[in-house]
């Protein structure tokens, strides 16, 4: 082997290496890093994790204008709204694995008979509602890690649930479970703000009429009932082996809420009539000065 040949070969190897690198550089210009950075989903994730919810929402809403049927965008947008409402799901993980708790719900509630008296129906309906809620509270206790949302943030939570609902038949089991989680948080919020709040407000006697208004209770019960039905359906979808039990629970909830609201409405009508009668009687018999309303 001649020395001059060897030097020539070494040079050739170096030059070949350069050509190799150059051709690879020019031939393959795809830049995965920028692709990663420009992925709107990952961008939105980052904004959410950095507590920049409004920017994440704006980004995804703009993307949805171009691609209104993009399920992934809707999904992440829903999570951005949920985040804005104060939802942090990470602490929920241990609970999510305890699906056995769902079996505790699978018990039949007593039926409210058609022939019962009105007060009996109210009592039975109220008892069933109480039983239903207390059983659920045992289940919902599993979700205690989720903080209660602030009153003015509920609107974002409702919107997040609506966005997930828009996904429709393309929804995956995990999306349904996520919607169930959001619905449970909303349920807890309504229980505290609307139901308990409505009852406590109704205890404040209207000074002008001395009339106890219990209709907000009715609408809160209806809303809670609807939410419960959605929750059961979502859990049933995400846990097929529980689907039948969830369907029964959903049906029971529907009946119970219906019974209870019918009874409450009846009571309200009777109560209105009684109030009018009482007021007329008081005025006609000159006992107005004796009637005390709201402690005045």
């Amino acid at each position: 082997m001649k020395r001059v040949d060897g030097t020539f070969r070494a040079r050739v190897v170096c030059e070949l290496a350069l050509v190799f690198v150059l051709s690879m550089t020019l031939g393959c210009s795809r830049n995965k890093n920028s692709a990663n950075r420009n992925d709107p989903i990952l961008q939105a994730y980052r904004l959410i994790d950095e507590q920049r919810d409004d920017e994440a929402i704006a980004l995804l809403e703009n993307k949805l204008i171009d691609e209104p049927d993009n399920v992934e965008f809707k999904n992440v947008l829903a999570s951005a709204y949920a985040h804005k409402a104060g939802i942090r799901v990470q602490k929920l993980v241990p609970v999510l694995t305890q699906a056995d708790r769902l079996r505790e719900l699978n018990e039949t509630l007593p039926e409210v008979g058609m022939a019962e008296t009105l007060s009996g129906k109210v009592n039975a309906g109220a008892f069933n509602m109480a039983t239903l809620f207390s059983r659920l509270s045992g289940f919902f206790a599993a979700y205690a890690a989720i903080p209660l949302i602030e009153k003015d943030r509920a609107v974002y939570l409702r919107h997040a649930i609506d966005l997930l609902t828009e996904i429709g038949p393309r929804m995956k089991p995990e999306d349904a479970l996520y919607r169930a989680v959001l619905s449970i948080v909303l349920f807890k919020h309504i229980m505290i703000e609307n139901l308990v709040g409505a009852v406590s407000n109704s205890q404040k006697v209207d000074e002008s009429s001395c009339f106890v208004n219990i209709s907000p209770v009715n609408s809160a019960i209806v809303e809670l009932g609807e939410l419960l039905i959605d929750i059961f359906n979502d859990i049933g979808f995400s846990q097929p082996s529980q689907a039948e039990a969830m369907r029964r629970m959903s049906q029971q909830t529907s009946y119970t809420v219906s019974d209870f609201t019918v009874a409450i409405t009846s009571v309200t009508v009777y109560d209105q009539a009684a109030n009018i009668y009482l007021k007329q009687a008081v005025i006609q018999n000159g006992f107005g000065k004796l009637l005390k309303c709201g402690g005045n």
Partner: protein
Amino acid sequence: MRWQLALFIPSFFISSHSFAEPSSLAFSRNARTFETQHGSLVTKGLAHSCLTIIDIPDGLNCNPAMNSLNSKPSLGAELQLSNGYAAIGNVRKLLDGKINDELVDTLFSSGKIIQIEGGADVNFRSRYLSGQYSPFSVKGFSVVRNEANPDVELYAIEESGFTFQSGAELYDRLYAGLQFRGLKRKFIKQRTKLVALGTEAGRNLLKPKQQAVNYFEPGLTYFFDTSWRPRVSAFVVNLGFVSEKFDELDEPIEGQFGIGVSPPVRWGILDLTLEFRSMTYEESDIERLRLGLLYHFGSMYVMAGADSNGLSSGVYYGLDKVNAGIMYSTTQLSSKGESFYTQTVYAQLGWQI
């Protein structure tokens, strides 16, 4: 010309080509740890650009064709760990299927990124046959994004098995070799929504899968007869059988190529390598290019490497009975424009006779 080449190649490697796949949740990850790649500290320091390296001091040669060039027989053991090793117990629990709420919460709590690698090897080397027994090699990675509805990317893999290699000079300066790898592995590799773990369909997402692989991997190297000792290598990997194929851990047959030179230096031995080989089998062609530098002086080895994943450098001392090394890698320059980057330190301690 040589200076131009020297400047051009590193600038190319540290350009904005990051390894992170578009679908990956990770903005950056360990530059030298990959699911199915097993490498010693020196090979990691070289950015795995080691097919044309004649003497890997802390393990088997990357290319079995180099086996007959082993300078002296040896027997030794090496223990390697990366930073983040505290999570190694959790990763092993996950792979043993011992999943409970606490473990899931630890692995996927808010904003947590786990990256670890650890393993042990027993090596013997001779001119005719070399082998390695790896009682365990564990790698783990997990990242969680979107705290309102967490999206999780996770892999955990544990391997154990044997590697044997042998080689010979087939023709004048043409060397050939064959490597056999027989491994058993357990792994979990998933990207999923965290809430999916609460669905019936998602219950098995964290169930470890098992696989046995037997690969026969041939390699060739040709040396040019000059002062720089240029050589070219080719190596075919993943040629063989797997007990069960899994889409998420695909190891396609791959042809790897490398060029190496040893420019004469006043003291010691300097090796420069440029190679085309994949680590994840998901990179684009350009991302498979990697560059390595190994300087050997006495008992000291200094290594440096650059590829699309990042930069690495380290030092390794092979004393008479004991050897030790430390290596650092970063993705800071390859993640240009990113505020996220990963820095990893690997340490290795060994004993040999």
